[in-house]
């Protein structure tokens, strides 16, 4: 057991630090520190543009997508370099928000399922930040029950495909160049078969993107309508009918990325309790409060070290263990509890969502609003618990009404009867 850098790691850290000191967009530092978790909004500059600039600078000097193979623009570096890099990149890593899908989940999925041509075409522009991706999975009638998607992909005579349907909750779809989309190619196959994965040009004819106003007042989420969008067969990821398997690869990577990047807000809370006074003394003097703080601290630390354990496993060439499945579940609800406590400590000031009213900013207010979504995105708390129960603890699947029958025969509303085949 060794937490310290090896000599080689220390040397890498020093080089990374020196490069960051020289090249980071220091003018954005304060704004990034204060930026609320989630979708990146910067007041002084266009966030996506700033993100792209930082990414391309990193790529130019060989600091982007460190663990990816060199032939696709990465550095073929050991996993440990990735964590050292992100520790050193610190607050500037928030500029990576627009690349969460492309680098965190789509890239690894292409490496697993893509053809050689797809890897060569798609991966390098992800590394340089030229291409931004969005994930088109959820639909109005398919969220937790993702395998219930209905967006159709229909094969044409010439081998190309036509896509029809609607996606929803697509983060960053307006900024995205490409979308990775799960479709139903065979409605008569059973539910988890008959799906196929594609990627589409977000500016292709027939793709219509409409923003959704969120509880945060931001509109990072979107509805995406697909009105007979033509897609060449070269844009298919994985075999026809294997869409669910490809989706699982993508979701597994997403959960690791989201889980390991999701902050809990503990550091912010801790500085608040040292600053804000109650009856004339800093709040941290209150013993009953300390008990809650300790609980949050040990959760936040536990998440950090769980991530280190997973990285240790990865750096030996293994798969991250089942521990990782707890990350997002724990982080999201901790963040919500922390935000609630922070508002409590602020008293009625806690109800003000405004910067510059006093020394306090509005980050806990934004955190309160945003954390509600954190418990939903990428698998709700319930879905995450079910995954742990089934895959880690080996418990039996819950009863399901949709097993073993053609997708087209599955009931979708209370007044539909399940078909005889299911009984």
């Amino acid at each position, binding site marked *: 057991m060794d937490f310290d850098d090896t000599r080689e790691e220390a040397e890498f850290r020093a080089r990374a630090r020196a490069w960051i000191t020289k090249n980071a967009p220091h003018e954005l530092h304060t704004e990034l520190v204060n930026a609320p978790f989630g979708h990146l909004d910067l007041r002084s500059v266009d966030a996506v543009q700033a993100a792209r600039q930082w990414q391309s600078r990193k790529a130019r000097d060989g600091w982007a997508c460190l663990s990816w193979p060199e032939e696709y623009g990465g550095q073929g570096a050991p996993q440990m370099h990735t964590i050292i890099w992100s520790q050193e990149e610190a607050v500037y890593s928030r500029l990576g928000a627009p690349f969460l899908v492309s680098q965190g989940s789509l890239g690894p999925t292409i490496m697993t399922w893509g053809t050689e041509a797809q890897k060569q075409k798609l991966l390098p522009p992800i590394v340089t930040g030229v291409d931004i991706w969005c994930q088109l999975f959820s639909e109005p009638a398919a969220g937790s029950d993702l395998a219930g998607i209905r967006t159709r992909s229909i094969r044409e005579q010439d081998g190309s495909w036509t896509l029809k349907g609607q996606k929803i909750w697509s983060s960053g779809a307006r900024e995205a160049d490409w979308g990775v989309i799960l479709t139903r190619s065979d409605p008569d196959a059973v539910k988890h078969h008959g799906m196929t994965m594609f990627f589409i040009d977000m500016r292709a004819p027939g793709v219509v993107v409409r923003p959704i106003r969120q509880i945060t007042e931001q509109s990072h989420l979107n509805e995406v309508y697909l009105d007979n969008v033509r897609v060449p067969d070269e844009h298919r990821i994985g075999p026809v009918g294997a869409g669910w398997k490809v989706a699982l690869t993508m979701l597994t990577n997403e959960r690791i990325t989201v889980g390991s990047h999701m902050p809990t807000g503990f550091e912010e809370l801790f500085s608040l309790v040292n600053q804000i006074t109650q009856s004339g003394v800093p709040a941290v003097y209150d013993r009953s409060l300390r008990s809650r703080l300790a609980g949050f601290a040990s959760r936040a630390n536990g998440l950090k070290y769980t991530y280190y354990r997973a990285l240790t496993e990865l750096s030996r060439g293994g798969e991250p263990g089942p521990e990782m499945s707890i990350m997002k579940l724990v982080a999201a609800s901790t963040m919500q509890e922390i935000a609630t406590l922070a508002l409590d400590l602020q008293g009625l000031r806690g109800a003000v969502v405004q910067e510059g009213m006093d020394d306090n900013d509005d980050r806990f207010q934004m955190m309160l609003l945003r954390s509600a979504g954190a418990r939903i995105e990428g698998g709700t708390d319930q879905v995450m*618990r079910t995954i742990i129960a089934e895959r880690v603890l080996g418990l039996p699947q819950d009863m399901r009404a949709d097993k073993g029958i053609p997708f087209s025969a599955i009931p979708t509303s209370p007044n539909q009867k399940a078909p005889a085949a299911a009984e």
Partner: protein
Amino acid sequence: MNFDFDSNQKSLQSEMRRFLEQRSPVSEVRTVLDGKRPFQESLWSELGEMGYTGVAIDECYGGTGLGYLELCLISEELGRTLAAVPYSSTVYIFAEALKEAGTEEQKQKWLPKIAKAQTVACFALEEGAGSTPLQKIKTRYADGAISGVKKPVVDGQIADVALVVARDDETENKCSLFIVDLTDETRFERTQYKSLDPTRSLASLNFKMAPADRLGVPGSAEILLSCILDRAAVFAAFEQIGGAEKALWMARDYSLERFAFGRPIGSFQAIQHMMADMYAATVLARSNAYYGVWALATQSDDLGLAAANARVSATQSYQLCARDAIHIHGGMGFTWEFDCHLHYRRSNFLAVQYGSLSQWEDRLVRQLCASDGVEID
């Protein structure tokens, strides 16, 4: 960075697990629970013969000289099997205190005995309900002897030596640690208490001019205790994790066998989600404990923080797993016959041994403040 135990350490752990499965099945533990024996004496001797009580004791004192990482893995297995042995009093506390502050003579006298499990120690700090701050200690050391009442004392009923915290007459009202031989029963009285966890005995020790041998320089109790209790917190955390995981997997296994409404109860989502939360708590606790033992083994400046962090997390995790394991067993979980209550008892016992949860929570926050350069009272 490498955040895992190495393969030698892991094989030591599986060896230990196999050994305990054979030598300390629950039926053995239950003989202590039922009051038929004060502790598992033969297991204790065997632990000594196998070198398990001396893993963190240098070879020159009869130990195997391995280290804290190995000690933690042994603790984890002892926690998993609920072994009723005075390991923690003797190994976590007494041996560490000797290693930290003992004279060569004291070390020569006691460490080889510990390494062979030929002695049972107890740690006599508390003097009644509530935590006992050193300023309130009434037990006194004067003219080479200790007088005063210590209660409750874990393993006080079975120990042959006590590590006693007492006000030292040779200082200005400060406390020191003292070694008191408990083989001469004329100088003290012991009274057994009924323990919440009968596999961990409790007693009061009433010292009447009992001859004592000071450990460390006069007045050093405060500094020594904070160092020794940080270590004990890490060891105990592993013990708690062993117990927590065992309770979780017991519940999991039961939930596959027990049917209700025509299906295994483990297929009900309410039950599944309870266990998912238990699992999450054990993962957090384990990761925090790894950090704790790393800080310990490397003598990191972060030890105070890392130990409190590990301890808080492990206590919460074991308490949660033990109480929900009962719940998942339904009425059966409430019986004497099922083992759930052993973990319920042990988890709540460990939660208050070596400083209770709220004290460690407090210490964790103080340490966080201290690492930011802020002192709080």
